[in-house]
């Protein structure tokens, strides 16, 4: 455990040095995320100028769902998405050999090698604050137990999103490149703005079991707002998370056996 924490510490320092190398880039990214938020709010305002409710969510509830969705996006994508991108590049170029010869657990290293705390904070804090202050909190009713279940589901959802993204990169071990395959995750992230209740029954089952991408924001948001049963959803999220952690470990071992490296 101590060794693994040391790896994380080294990776955080390395990432920090890398991230602060291009100063102007930090400002332009800040502008980018702020513009994204403003455009998102404009989109919601335009949408709700045409409708009163969307899948049973009024504007305040929808704003809350967007808040949860963005929180999930920035923590999960901010911390782990780049690692998957690097993994694909390394396999394609043969640099993955250098990871295998390092005296570190390979799965752990490729999951946590890039720790972009600067960019995560830079991109997420302004966005989250803007959305936070745009939510009419007084119009929302919360129950403490629902919030607790919601947070638990949110954590499970975060692990599951990472699992989905990670599994989408692994075909690179067989085909040499999984850039477009892993980009499917970007298309899947379009689900963030659709409430759980907006999906048909079959799609709900699909996206909470086979491709469990709506547990993070949609299910946790629905539970926090009291629209879904907290304990049942939490149990379901836990079971799916355990299953996916198991799947990742099995597929990783299988993928390593198939890795032929660039030079062989």
């Amino acid at each position, binding site marked *: 455990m101590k060794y693994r924490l040391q790896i994380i510490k080294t990776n955080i320092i390395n990432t920090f040095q890398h991230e602060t190398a291009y100063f102007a880039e930090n400002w332009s990214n800040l502008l*980018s995320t702020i513009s*994204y938020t403003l*455009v998102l709010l404009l989109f919601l305002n*335009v*949408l709700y100028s045409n409708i009163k409710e969307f*899948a049973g969510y009024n504007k305040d509830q929808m704003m809350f769902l967007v808040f949860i969705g963005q929180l999930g996006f920035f923590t999960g994508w901010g911390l782990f998405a780049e690692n998957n991108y690097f993994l694909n590049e390394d396999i394609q170029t043969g640099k993955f050999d250098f990871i295998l010869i390092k005296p570190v657990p390979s799965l752990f290293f490729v999951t946590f090698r890039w720790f972009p705390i600067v960019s995560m904070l830079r991109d997420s804090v302004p966005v989250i604050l803007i959305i936070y202050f745009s939510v009419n909190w007084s119009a929302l009713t919360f129950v403490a137990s629902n919030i607790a279940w919601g947070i638990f589901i949110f954590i499970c959802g975060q692990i599951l999103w990472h699992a989905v993204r990670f599994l989408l990169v692994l075909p690179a071990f067989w085909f040499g490149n999984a850039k*477009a395959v892993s980009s499917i995750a970007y298309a*899947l992230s*379009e689900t963030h703005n659709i409430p759980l209740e907006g999906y048909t029954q079959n799609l709900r089952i699909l996206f909470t079991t086979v491709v469990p991408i709506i547990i993070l924001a949609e299910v946790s948001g629905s539970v926090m707002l009291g629209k879904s049963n907290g304990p049942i959803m939490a149990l379901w999220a836990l079971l799916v998370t355990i299953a996916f952690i198991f799947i990742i470990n099995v597929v990783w071992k299988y993928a390593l056996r198939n890795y032929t490296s660039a030079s062989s």
Partner: protein
Amino acid sequence: MLFSLRQLKLLFEVAKFNALKMLAYPWELVAFFIQRFLGLLFLAIFWFAVSQSSTTLQSFHSLIAYFLVSSAVRDLTFSYELKFGREIQRMVKSGEITNYLIKPVPAIPFLFFAYAGQTWMSLIYSACALIAGIILLPPLSVINFIAFIMFLVLAFIVSISFNLFMAIISFYVVEAQGIRNMFNHVIRVLSGALIPLTLFPGTLRYFTLLSPFPLFAFTPTYVLQNTLPWNELGYLFAVSLGWAIGLFLIMSYLWRRALKQYEGIGI
């Protein structure tokens, strides 16, 4: 002539060569179509849920037709995430662009044809989406088709200008990803790619239509699917033409200026 026949032949060879390169990873092609299909699927789920929530909105059927055509327009005009500009940004950052600047061919057309070759599957996707959109909501007359093609040409010029702008920025700031993302976010909503501009409140819609962004998705789709009075069509055309000519001239000038201050290795 803008290009000699020999140069044009060479450019098509460049496109062909880059298209063939993409065949090396067939699963990537499959993944590309899955990705695009999922994008449309989620958009459909979203708007299905929206149309269920309101009786005053456009029908789900016409909304899907709108998004099919508008997504085709985004690809056909190369405005989808300004990826051509991103490609040049990457080359400028790595210094790879030097290889193209020293070739005895015009750099931008050369780079564009190379990029277009790499993205041939986007063009196939957009052709399928366009045909599906036309079948779902057929245009009422041949004038719609003519207007669509005219606006598509203008949209292409404006899009290339925007892509060039992204490339120009990278000559001045090493890493321009954030600026490009900012434009992409704005374009996504103001182009009508995410929500039809017909749903915008009156004043906001008026000012948005004055900007170049609707050309990337809304305007060509709008003229294809609706019979517009001549004065409205003329107004949209005048605004679009103004942007196309203005932006093209400005970006051509800025590109030449940017090249002058480029310090590539070996130049």
